[in-house]
């Protein structure tokens, strides 16, 4: 078995490098002192980060992204949690079908969803508006919330609520004292995930947004497609950092919940 173990370890190492190396390269280049993307950089500086902060286009994009991701995360989490509760605990006829239908945006290519939204919004004047953006982002993040909260609900032992009832807890008390606290980490982590997904969302924003309503990914997209300098590497590194922080927060939530595997 030794040879196979070795082969497995080799592939794992290769995949690990393959997954992380590009991000590390971008991180290093973002600190370059040169205005071209040479690797390794000839020297190090913070000039591209300064560039980023000074350029109103980038700062506007960050502000637009935040204005979209906050309502998106809140709405998605509220709607998704409610839907997951109904689907898993509601004993609804046809819950399986409805649940699968709500997951559809995960398998329908984002480009189709976005083009459809663009067409639908034209008559309503929602293209280029914040509301239109938020609705589009809710559509693409909602399935993830339903899936995350739903799987947490499914792994929640229904006997705990039964036990609470035999101990004298009304359904409302059992929900508040037992179900909700046990579900909270999953709800928070789905909110985090929705926020990150919204922050990263490109295609919906590309279609529904406008020249004045540009999110960070849209701004990056138009920069990458033109002549780009390490400023893009700097914003990419910041996005990467945001992802790492989100990942750490999520791990923390999981641990707080006591690793109920």
């Amino acid at each position, binding site marked *: 078995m030794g040879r196979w173990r070795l082969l497995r370890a080799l592939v794992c190492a290769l995949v690990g490098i393959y997954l992380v190396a590009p991000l590390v390269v971008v991180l290093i280049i973002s600190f370059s002192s040169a205005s071209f993307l040479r*690797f390794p950089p000839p020297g190090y500086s913070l000039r591209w980060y300064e560039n980023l902060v000074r350029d109103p286009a980038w700062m506007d994009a960050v502000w637009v992204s935040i204005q979209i991701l906050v309502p998106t995360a809140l709405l998605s989490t509220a709607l998704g949690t409610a839907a997951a509760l109904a689907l898993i605990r509601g004993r609804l006829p046809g819950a399986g079908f409805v649940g699968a239908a709500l997951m559809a945006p995960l398998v329908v*290519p984002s480009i189709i969803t976005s083009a*459809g939204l663009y067409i639908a919004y034209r008559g309503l004047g929602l293209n280029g508006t914040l509301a239109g953006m938020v609705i589009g982002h809710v559509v693409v993040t909602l399935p993830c919330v339903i899936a995350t909260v739903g799987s947490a609900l499914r792994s929640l032992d229904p006997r705990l609520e039964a036990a609470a009832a035999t101990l004298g807890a009304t359904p409302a008390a059992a929900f508040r004292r037992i179900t909700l606290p046990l579900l909270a980490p999953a709800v928070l982590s789905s909110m985090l995930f929705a926020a*990150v997904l919204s922050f*990263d969302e490109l295609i919906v924003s590309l279609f529904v947004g406008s020249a004045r309503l540009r999110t960070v990914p849209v701004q990056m997209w138009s920069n990458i497609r033109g002549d780009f300098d390490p400023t893009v590497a700097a914003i990419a590194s910041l996005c990467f950092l945001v992802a790492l922080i989100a990942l750490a927060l999520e791990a923390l939530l999981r641990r707080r919940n006591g690793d109920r595997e």
Partner: protein
Amino acid sequence: MEAGPVNGRRGAGPWLLLLPAALVMLIAFALPVGMLLARAFTHPEPGLQNFILLWERPVYLHVLVNTVMIAAAATPVTLILAYPVAHAMAHGSPRTRRLLTFLVLIPFWTSLLVRSFATVILLQRRGPLNTLLVNIGVIDAPLPLIYNLTGVLLGAVQTLLPFVIFPLYSSMRRIDPTLMPAALTMGASPVRAFLRVYLPLSLPGLMTGATLVFISMLGYFVIPALLGGPRQTMVGQLIQDQVGQLGSWGVAGALSFVLLAVTAGLLGLLHRLVGLKAVAR
């Protein structure tokens, strides 16, 4: 035992909880997608002329075939790389599992655009990878790694890996790790034991992963735009062009229709093979 679940909410309550999400999905997802698809049959005038156009114009057909070919090429590469990683996560030491999970989660949480951009940087003509290969003497001149099929595949596989590794891992974790040693004690060589025992048991996870990779790849847009050349144009880009620049709703609708039909067909096939439960995971 025979005791069932208890005091489930009944009556109108669950429907009211479900309503907001269902309405949003109906109005802001099903309806718009339906409108786009309807354009295929109504724009600029009612009829099937948009589909005839797809069939007759070599550009469209070429892009459609191209899309399927690229997805078909990326799928096995992704699976072959994902399989050993998922296996090590499922049956390796806790330390290995934690490390690999972390390595796979990083790209999972990082945006596709950032990762694609990072791959552009890495694969450039004078980028780090070419520099490294030249410096250690593997090659004499920089290789063309980007703006061609290689670039698209390298970028696509990288972004798809996490989406296969996790489902594969969760299906492998359910495989009893003593089955392989058991097969070995019965005289099977490691290769035969793997082919006859382990591989069949991991097949549902593998098929689910393959379908998901193929389907996501069909709709790819960012990767071919950033890492491919004109010859690697995929349907997603074509749809964007039709809507964004040309305003040809009908063609965009017809292309979407074909893309969705292929996706739905593949999901249906997977459902018949491994059951919908596995797809929903």
